[in-house]
């Protein structure tokens, strides 16, 4: 494990026994080069190897670089159509997300709106609830089969297509799913707008709206660009939403095209889907680069004072009401629709006291072996990933501290890479890596280990972020005091840094757990018999026409995730600022 130090005082006691074992032990404890190497190896294995493997299969499947073949794999009409659909839905989805997220960001961070914390918490929920669950709930809200609308005799006429299916529905769901990203990013920018500027403008007679448009907006423009770029990237990589809203009407994006190809044709199409994966990866990385460039120009131009704050006066309650109505439509109604669907015996049956049944919950929670297994598998996989990453993150964060600022930035970029890439791309990379038997470990395909490996790669960045922040903020005094008193790096890490970083590591672990627990994109291609995840069984039940049982699973996962979020919120007081976005 990585052991390191930030200062190098006279820590080597003069006399020590020199048995060969103790020399090795001492080497491990003292030698910081060794620990640095360990850090590099971990980052290399988790972040770079999958990407390199993918690129090599895409452009050199037979061992020789062949760009002509690469291009010809991408030139089919289906690929061009899917690429256009991806860009189209992601772009308009990001714009609409901006329209939803920006007013919330301004209202919740710059005004005295009542109930700000609760609204912020609720607005972030779509980010934590899996995309396929959100898509499913919206699907059940509209359309002639809506149990909720049906209960009030409001459902559309039979034969009306569900308005959520196809392009427009995907754009709407991208907007709702990614509005929280806009909200978080913009809020970070708004917090930096100094009060004096706003007050100066106000006292020279500008109206609040004018201040917003002429002072605040120009100052946060880089954040607007960055936030929109991030929302765009998330749309490019999304699988759950186009899978449920696009595939049933043959409206394919790149992610669903990859899924359809590999799940209908098997490994013979691997070179082609590798090429497609590289294509999406490039689209996603362009977005990430745009975001990074935008934020680089945001930095150090203003002195940061107390954040500006407007008083809303008589508008407080009406605006709060508008906020709540928006949340009602975005979140509460769809979830209610999902719940009502989970309570009927078969699709299309109206809900009333006679038809109300809990049999769907009974079936998925207790009777069906595969859904039972899925709950167990997802808990184990998400829990294992969260624990391993939480324990790995602390020594890695300490190990990274000893590198130069530039190398640190490069390493963090590498760590972020698998998280920035669409999940389906990572899944393809893992199939390529682990399908053929490897020396010592054999083939990991069709075992749970391939999913665990993919999760470790994917959520590495999520676990590192809070811990890096916490370790970075830690005062050096304690560590130095311990070093002067003769404590070795390993001991200092265990007794001083680790306890201080523990809340951040736990927060990281919970974030990882929630993301992995509900995840579909990665496991959709990696699952095998006995290793189904919750995302996979939900999708499979929906595809088998058992929509009511899929709804029951979705409702259950929402309950679990919201419970975990409350736990995180309670933990929030002990965390460095900025780890929990809603606080």
């Amino acid at each position: 494990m990585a052991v390191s130090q930030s200062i190098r005082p006279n820590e080597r006691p003069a006399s020590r026994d020199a048995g060969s074992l103790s020399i090795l032990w001492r080497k491990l404890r003292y030698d910081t080069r060794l620990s640095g190497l360990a850090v590099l190896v971990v980052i290399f294995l988790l972040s770079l190897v999958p990407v390199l493997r993918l690129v090599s299969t895409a452009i050199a499947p037979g061992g020789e670089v062949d760009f002509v073949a690469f291009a010809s794999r991408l030139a089919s009409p289906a690929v061009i159509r899917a690429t256009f659909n991806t860009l189209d839905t992601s772009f308009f989805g990001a714009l609409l997300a901006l329209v939803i997220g920006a007013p919330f960001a301004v209202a919740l961070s710059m005004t005295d709106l009542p109930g700000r914390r609760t609204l912020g918490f609720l607005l972030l929920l779509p980010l934590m609830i899996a995309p396929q669950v959100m898509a499913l709930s919206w699907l059940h809200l509209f359309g002639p089969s809506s149990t909720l609308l049906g209960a009030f005799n409001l459902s559309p006429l039979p034969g009306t297509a569900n308005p959520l299916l196809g392009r427009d529905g995907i754009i709407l769901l991208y907007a709702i799913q990614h509005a929280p990203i806009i909200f978080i990013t913009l809020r970070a920018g708004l917090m930096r707008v100094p009060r004096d500027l706003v007050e100066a403008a106000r006292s020279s007679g500008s109206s609040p709206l004018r201040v917003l448009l002429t002072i605040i907006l120009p100052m946060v423009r880089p954040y607007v660009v960055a936030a929109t770029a991030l929302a765009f990237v998330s749309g490019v990589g999304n699988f759950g939403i186009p899978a449920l809203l696009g595939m049933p009407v043959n409206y394919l994006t790149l992610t669903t095209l990859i899924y359809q190809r590999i799940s209908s044709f098997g490994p013979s199409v691997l070179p082609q889907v590798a090429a497609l994966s590289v294509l999406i990866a490039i689209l996603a990385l362009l977005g990430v680069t745009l975001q990074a460039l935008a934020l680089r120009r945001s930095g150090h131009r203003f002195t940061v004072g107390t954040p500006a704050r407007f008083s809303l006066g008589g508008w407080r309650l009406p605006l709060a009401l508008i906020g709540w109505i928006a949340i009602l439509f975005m979140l509460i109604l769809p979830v209610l629709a999902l719940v009502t669907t989970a309570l009927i015996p078969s699709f299309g049956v109206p809900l009333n006291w006679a038809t109300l049944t809990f049999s769907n919950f009974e079936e998925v929670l207790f009777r069906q072996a595969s859904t039972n297994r899925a709950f167990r598998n997802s808990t184990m996989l998400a829990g294992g990933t969260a624990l391993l990453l939480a324990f790995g993150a602390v020594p890695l964060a300490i190990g990274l501290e000893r590198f130069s600022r530039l190398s640190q930035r490069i390493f963090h970029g590498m760590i972020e890479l698998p998280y920035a890439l669409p999940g389906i791309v990572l899944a393809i990379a893992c199939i390529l890596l682990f399908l053929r038997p490897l020396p010592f470990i054999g083939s990991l395909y069709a075992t749970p280990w391939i999913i665990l490996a993919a999760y470790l790669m994917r959520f590495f960045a999520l676990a590192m972020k809070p811990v890096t922040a916490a370790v970075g903020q830690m005062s050096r005094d304690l560590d130095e005091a311990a070093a002067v008193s003769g404590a070795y790096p390993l001991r200092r890490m265990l007794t001083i840094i680790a306890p201080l970083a523990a809340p951040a590591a736990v927060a990281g672990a919970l974030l990882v757990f929630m993301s992995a627990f509900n995840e579909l994109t990665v496991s959709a291609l990696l699952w095998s018999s006995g290793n189904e995840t919750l995302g996979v069984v939900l999708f499979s039940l929906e595809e088998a026409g058992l929509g009511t049982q899929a709804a029951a699973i979705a409702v259950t996962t929402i309950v679990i995730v919201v419970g975990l979020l409350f736990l995180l919120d309670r933990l929030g007081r002990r965390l460095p600022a900025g780890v929990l976005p809603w606080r």
Partner: protein
Amino acid sequence: MRQLLAAAIVMAAGLHPAFALDGKLVLYTSQPNTDAQQTTDAFMAKNPGIKVEWVRDGTPKIMAKLRAEIEAGNPQPDVLLLSDVVTMEGLKKEGRLLAFKDANTDGIDPALMDRDGTYFSTKLITTGIIYNTKAPFVPSSWSDLTKPEAKNLVSMPSPLTSGAAMIHTVTLTENLPGGWDFYAELAKNGAQAAGGNGDVLKAVSGGDKLFGMIVDYMPIREKAKGAPVEFVFPKEGVSAVTEPVAILSTAKNPEAAKAFVNFLLSEEGQKLAVSMGYIPARPDAGLPAGYPDRSTIKVLAFDAAGALTNDTANKEKFSEVMGQ
């Protein structure tokens, strides 16, 4: 801290599903989830020593999964219970199926069985027309789906997802006078081909679409639960698949697999199929409620060998005609 670390390791280690017990049997099937569960539950009740683990997906998808596993050198299933004999015939040609000559095939038409004993038909599943009870007219012929009143209201399964849909497409194009033109007309009428039979059921019972092509047992069964759907055997006749079961030559537990095959073909297994709403392979097992008499169902013939050799071409032709 140390305890937590230990817990992490235990959790990670626990991921491996209990090292293959003697009595574990892995089944890959295209049956809907609830049916697969009921079938395996009944089998396990009879054979308490055997624990069945099943995976469900559309036949082409199950096959893609199996191909990837074969490539990884680690095919998982012992038994396959898939929609059609064409798929099985392909596997048999590659030598992937185990011959089980002593299977208990009493009372079943030998024409439904492979002569070499590598696969055994378990039921008769026909594909006909489903309509929502709120539909403007009651369809009675395949050509009704191309009527203007059905414009944009027809849903059908895609051969890329469903094995039964592949056979259905081959059968109709061989038997209807229009051949592929019938499908071209469907496409012109805005018929939607996506997903499997489950998707068709969902679309028609939910009212998104009002007509569809679908396997018989789904609408007949859901109607009994109160869903607003009806099933029609069109006058030209229906296509049929027989949901064969087969043992892989790489099966890790061939004895349990043989017991499973015998169970499906036994009187009890066949009666179970009836109780789930399927037409059984053994006529003496009876018929589920909601079906007309067996002799009145007209099953159209199709060229199975041709379907196997032209499989990819047919899929491509379908995609082209349906404008996908």
